[in-house]
């Protein structure tokens, strides 16, 4: 009878209410993670879980995004910017009690970079001397790679060039250490298929430990008892839900199944905003939505045509109508205020100038226009933006642009093979630095995809900026380089992304930031702040 009564009571309590009572955060995580091996996984949902189970040498402060101590309690950078020495926290422990040592990092980075590992994020370690050569199989001797354990607690890293954002990279999971004995217990170091990350096997060094992993249902982690900073971890646990369908996720939030949603359905954003609902959090995100222009094919090989297309786009109108005012118009590739860096603004909505440039290019009032095709991957928002721009170009310049939607992988294939004239693209920065956007457009950049190539630009991005003596000087070089890039207009910037979440009022210590970066150590639940829906 008593059990029945309990059951009846339990049924009435929502996840959020129970979570607030028990100190457990119920977290909408977007998708089922591919896995939990830091050197294998690639996506955002994986990142959120991996960073609860593991910790890097340095972590990002969620309020400032500046690095702060993680496994390393301090670090020094040599005057020439080429040597970084990390001092590991003597209290840093693996979840089985083993100490985290400098040797763990040397072994783990070898694994992360090993050519047979197939780590798609190995490039995060490329600033380390000889790391790229080792990862691409040109160098076999790992001892020549710039990472050394001077003793158990001192890790010395030699860089191939000064890399001002290097410490930030230590918070990326591909640079994390993994527990060697655990991995070797289940197979070779570079075997991707072993079950070492399963609940019963995994050993991590983060603030939480894995307790349950039900495929496509939930992943539950609990506060670690061995984590060096455990006294400051306020949550007792987190439950991650694979909320692939954004409408389902929003409904789960509304009925109290979730504290936090990964995103908000686009058509619901204006509803929450107009209501002034404080649970809806919209903030700038380090990403740019833009169109690639294939500068190798006519008529886009003419700079004036590229400028005309870009000038004729009324971005503000596009944002206000199609995007419900959720995102911010973009006029260059780097998002504004990327750790204090502001990109140049060369363009604005200017139909007169656009017409004039198009006429100069040989298409006065659209006469003789050969037609251009715009490719985007199948998605309602991409379609709406493309249709709106198509109409803007028609109205302003009297030119026809046809639209082709392609299934995701077909679209990726088209972009990869430069088999397009205009293609939709989005880019999210890997770290908070303009370099994460600007180094895409160096001549042989894997994500350049426009045919843009400028030796002077490469020189500035690859050699001058890294050697800059101060942040101001570096930003000045970036600004000049980005101006050169935008003068050629190989892309049409459209908007800067924003992150959108629904957050229950009881959730504290989870500030919005440019990286949408979450450090669970800072999060706590305040049941008294509970508000009605």
């Amino acid at each position: 009878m008593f059990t029945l009564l309990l059951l009846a009571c339990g049924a009435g309590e929502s996840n959020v209410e129970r979570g607030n009572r028990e100190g457990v955060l119920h977290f909408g995580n977007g998708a089922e993670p591919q896995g939990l091996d830091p050197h294998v996984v690639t996506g955002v949902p994986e990142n959120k879980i991996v960073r609860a189970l593991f910790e890097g040498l340095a972590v990002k402060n969620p309020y400032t995004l500046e690095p702060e101590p993680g496994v390393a309690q301090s670090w020094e950078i040599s005057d020439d910017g080429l040597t970084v020495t990390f001092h590991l926290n003597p209290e840093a422990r693996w979840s089985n009690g083993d100490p985290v040592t400098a040797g763990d990092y040397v072994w783990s980075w070898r694994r992360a970079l090993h050519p047979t590992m197939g780590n798609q994020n190995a490039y995060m370690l490329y600033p380390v001397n000889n790391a790229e050569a080792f990862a691409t199989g040109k160098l076999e001797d790992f001892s020549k790679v710039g990472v050394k354990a001077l003793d158990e607690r001192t890790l010395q890293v030699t860089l191939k060039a000064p890399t001002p954002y290097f410490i930030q990279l230590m918070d990326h999971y591909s640079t994390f250490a993994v527990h060697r004995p655990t991995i070797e217990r289940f197979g070779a170091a570079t075997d991707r298929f072993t079950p070492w990350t399963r609940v019963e096997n995994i050993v991590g060094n983060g603030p939480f430990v894995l307790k349950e992993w039900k495929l496509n249902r939930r992943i539950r982690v609990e506060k670690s008892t061995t984590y060096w900073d455990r006294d400051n971890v306020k949550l007792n646990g987190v439950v991650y839900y694979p909320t692939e369908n954004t409408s389902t996720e929003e409904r789960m939030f509304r009925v109290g199944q979730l504290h936090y949603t990964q995103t908000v359905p686009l058509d619901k954003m204006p509803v929450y905003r107009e209501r002034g609902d404080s649970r809806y959090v919209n903030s700038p995100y380090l990403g740019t939505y833009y169109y690639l222009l294939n500068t190798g094919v006519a008529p886009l090989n003419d700079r004036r045509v590229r400028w005309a297309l870009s000038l004729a786009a009324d971005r503000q109108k596009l944002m206000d109508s199609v995007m419900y005012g959720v995102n911010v118009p973009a006029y260059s590739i780097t998002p504004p205020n990327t750790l204090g860096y502001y990109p140049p603004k060369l363009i604005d909505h200017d139909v007169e100038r656009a017409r004039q440039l198009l006429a100069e290019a040989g298409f006065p009032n659209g006469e003789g226009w050969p037609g251009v095709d715009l490719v985007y991957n199948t998605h309602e928002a991409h379609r709406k933006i493309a249709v709106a721009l198509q109409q803007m170009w028609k109205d302003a310049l009297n030119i026809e642009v046809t639209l082709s939607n392609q299934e995701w992988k077909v679209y990726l294939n088209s972009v990869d093979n430069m088999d397009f004239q205009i293609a939709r693209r989005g880019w999210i920065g890997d770290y908070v630095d303009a370099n994460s956007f600007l180094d895409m457009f160096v001549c042989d950049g894997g994500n350049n995809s426009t045919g843009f190539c400028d030796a002077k630009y490469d020189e500035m991005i690859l050699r001058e900026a890294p050697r800059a003596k101060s942040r101001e000087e570096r930003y000045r070089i970036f600004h000049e380089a980005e101006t050169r890039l935008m003068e050629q207009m190989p892309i049409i910037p459209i908007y800067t992304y924003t992150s959108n979440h629904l957050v229950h009022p009881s959730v504290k210590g989870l500030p919005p930031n440019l990286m949408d970066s979450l450090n669970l150590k800072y999060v706590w639940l305040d049941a008294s702040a509970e508000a009605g829906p």
Partner: protein
Amino acid sequence: MWRFVGIRLLQAIPVILAVITVTFFLVRVAPGGPFDGEKAVVPEVKAALEAQYRLDLPLWQQYTAYLGDLAQGDLGPSFKYPGRSVNELIASGLPITAELGFYALLIAVLIGGLAGVIASLKPNTAQDYIPMSAAMIGICMPSFLLGPILLLVFGIYLEWLPVSGWGDLPGDKILPAITLGSTYAAYVARLSRAGMLEVLSQDYIRTARAKGLPEWQVVVRHALRGGMMPVVAFLGPAFAGVLSGSFVVETIFGIPGLGRFYVQAAFNRDYTMILGTTVFLSTLIVLFNLLSDILAAWMNPRLRQQFSKG
């Protein structure tokens, strides 16, 4: 009878082999590969990944190797979820989808069958038109519309039932089963009506009525068995259809079933997963078709006789 089953099983082998072969080569023709992503993958990394999945071998060698693994029941490692095998992923999703499908068909047969029988008793009257119009709406109403409507009403406004999950909260299986079952209920209603109409015009029914049996006995004891024949024939393929076609319902309700894997595998170019689920589901379709044939034979004395002779 056993000979019939044996022959049908033997016939199934070339069918399934053809499905494997066509699927194997078709997915390779599709543009884009499993390792393509928004960020370009370094060529050396891509090569290493391809080697780990045997994609560096000539296509025919990959094909024969796959068949070899398949013969041992190994569907290979998933591309999308490294560290998990396709067998494991199917095993995790199948029981859930099968349970969902079972409830959905149960609802379909109970509600649809009842509606069909009621309609057939007085054809071309209101008693016929009302359930049949409802059935037509059921067929036309897609689950991506019905699901959210049910969710809004019962989940959000009335707060009677959970809005997502499977077996986590009490009552969370009800709405998905109704959503998935409604389309099938509509089909069952139309099939059972047609079947019943045909049977009710037969001589033996007239005989039964002439003997003075009450109408409910005529329907339940004599007509129902023959009238439901088309429904039984439909159930086998329907169950296989439910297993492979529950994607939309699973997505709306956040159910960790097989349907999601099946559809997403194609988008992800998860070659082994596409093949694994296709092979698995086509085998099921063949088996369920056979099963419904056997069931139909068992219910139909004429066919039963043929089998026992043959």
